[in-house]
């Protein structure tokens, strides 16, 4: 819709309708749109400035230390990446599988609608509750070990699974039905149709959705706290049963250190590192999406 809000013209025989409210409202709405973005930008600028001088090679390659000038982020960085990779391994097949079932196999019955509603609901369950689930199920019942890579990955994987399923469903739904018809018409079985036609077409969308969900996973803190992930770790995890810390957890811990150098320097450096990793992940998703959009 074009702007119909230009200045009220000079009077003519048709009269004139006041645009004061219109213009004021437009400005108000624009201001509202920008307020969140601008305040976030200001905060990001602040934290980036604070990180200057702290975010350096030493910071990225050392273990944590109570002396802010020696403190490092490496174990948390590696921990986050390790957890994320494991989450990807868990959620990708499960999420895509569920999406395939709901889009390609399930009929429109009560069970399907129930599953669908349930998935939408799970997507809104607070992350701290997933933390309790992880604590009760993986740490308690299955005895995977508190604070281990595996327990962390399982817990956060369950948390992002609904998001992965929903975005994979959207990608699968976007595959034109004519493609399926073509395959079925050739005598392809359902599985062949899914494997040869549906999945290849939907894959960029599925990847984009999954990667964005992983971005969400890498910032999760509360579930890790609930499964008793250690406050500080000094080495890279050597197995999936190793105790693991993660970037947001390390940031949360540093924020409680006595020295102001931590508060305004080290934590800022950690925040910037976390955001850069997140940005990288999201950029990958966007690149995949754009490349895919160009081709169709």
């Amino acid at each position, binding site marked *: 819709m074009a702007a119909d809000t230009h200045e009220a013209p000079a009077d003519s025989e048709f009269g004139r309708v006041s645009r004061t409210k219109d213009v004021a409202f437009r400005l108000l709405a624009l201001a509202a749109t920008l307020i969140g973005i601008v305040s976030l930008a200001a905060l990001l600028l602040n934290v980036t400035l604070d990180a200057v001088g702290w975010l350096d090679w030493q910071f990225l390659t*050392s*273990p*944590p*230390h*109570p*002396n802010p000038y*020696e403190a490092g982020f490496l174990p948390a960085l590696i921990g986050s990446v390790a957890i994320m990779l494991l989450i990807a391994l868990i959620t990708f097949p499960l999420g895509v599988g569920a999406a395939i079932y709901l889009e390609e196999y399930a009929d429109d019955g009560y069970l399907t609608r129930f599953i669908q509603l349930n998935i939408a609901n799970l997507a809104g369950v607070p992350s701290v509750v997933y933390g309790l689930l992880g604590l009760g199920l993986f740490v308690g019942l299955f*005895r*995977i*070990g*508190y*604070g*281990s890579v595996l327990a962390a990955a399982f817990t956060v994987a369950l948390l992002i699974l609904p998001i992965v399923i929903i975005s994979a469903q959207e990608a699968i739904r976007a595959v034109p039905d004519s493609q399926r018809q073509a395959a079925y018409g050739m005598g392809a079985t359902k599985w062949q149709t899914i494997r040869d036609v549906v999945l290849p077409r939907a894959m960029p969308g599925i990847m984009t959705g999954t990667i964005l969900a992983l971005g969400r996973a890498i910032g999760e803190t509360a579930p890790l706290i609930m499964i*008793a992930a*250690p*406050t*500080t*770790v*000094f*080495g*890279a*995890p*050597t*197995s999936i*049963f*190793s*105790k*693991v*810390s993660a970037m947001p957890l390390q940031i949360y*811990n540093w*924020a*409680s*250190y*006595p*020295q*102001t150098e931590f*508060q305004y320097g080290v934590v800022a450096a950690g925040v910037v590192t976390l955001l850069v990793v997140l940005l990288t992940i999201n950029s990958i998703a966007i690149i995949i999406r754009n490349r895919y959009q160009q081709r169709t």
Partner: protein
Amino acid sequence: TGIFASEGNQINIAGSSTVFPVTEAIASAFSEENPTVNIALSKTGTGGGFGNFFCAGRTDINNASRAIADAEIEQCGNSDVTPLELTVATDALTVVVNPNADWVDCLTVEQLREIWRADGAQRWSDIDDEWPDEEFELYGAATTSGTFDYFNEAIIGEEENHRSDYHATERDRTIVQGVQGSEFAMGYFGFSYYSENPDSIKAVAIDDGDGCVEPSIETAMSGEYTPLSRPLFIYVAKESLTKPSVRNFVRFYMNRAATDLVSEVGYVPTTEDQRDENLKQLETAIEEVTE
């Protein structure tokens, strides 16, 4: 329990937030020399560490800002954990107020008790008529912490309860920020949290009947700072000493605890005698379990 915790080169530590910086500094140094060892360190409070982790067989070492309690020893025994106590530093538990609170520089133990006991004073003026007629804003250690237990024992005593309407936290930084943020606030924690922020918060001298004594490394070492100076410990599960990585780490710890590494963090290092005594105990325990 604990089948995975004792796996390979993993060393698990939980417990006191007071001792945390010491252990962190030493663990950081250790892991740079031994990159294949993965040390995981949690800040749970002394009691939380004993109850939830150490005596449940989930950690190898527990940081402690007080001695282990009988109930905890019993709990450890139930899951076949034998604690070995090692002193690693001395702390001056410090009471702090806002720098703008110019009316108070020194408090007697009785005054402190009046402020921190349940059903005690609510306003500054309740303690001294000269002081502002304002409510206290109190920040202190959570009940699971050794600091709480020590303060409770040394100041409040058996007769009374520690008050419960205060900001209780395991994150001492929170106390620094809270006290810094309000003119009428007061808090207490380990000395290191004060020594790192001498400008933003003010330490109160304590009068235990012999005049006011400022908390400092010197007064703690000399024993003048009573009743709030206290020893800090780590407890090692003897069973964990079967793991070479734990043995090496604890030896390393004992050696480093006698160095400036500890004073940099804000506590008093162990004396050389203490260190030798610690190492002797340690080697005896190692021999016990490796036979």
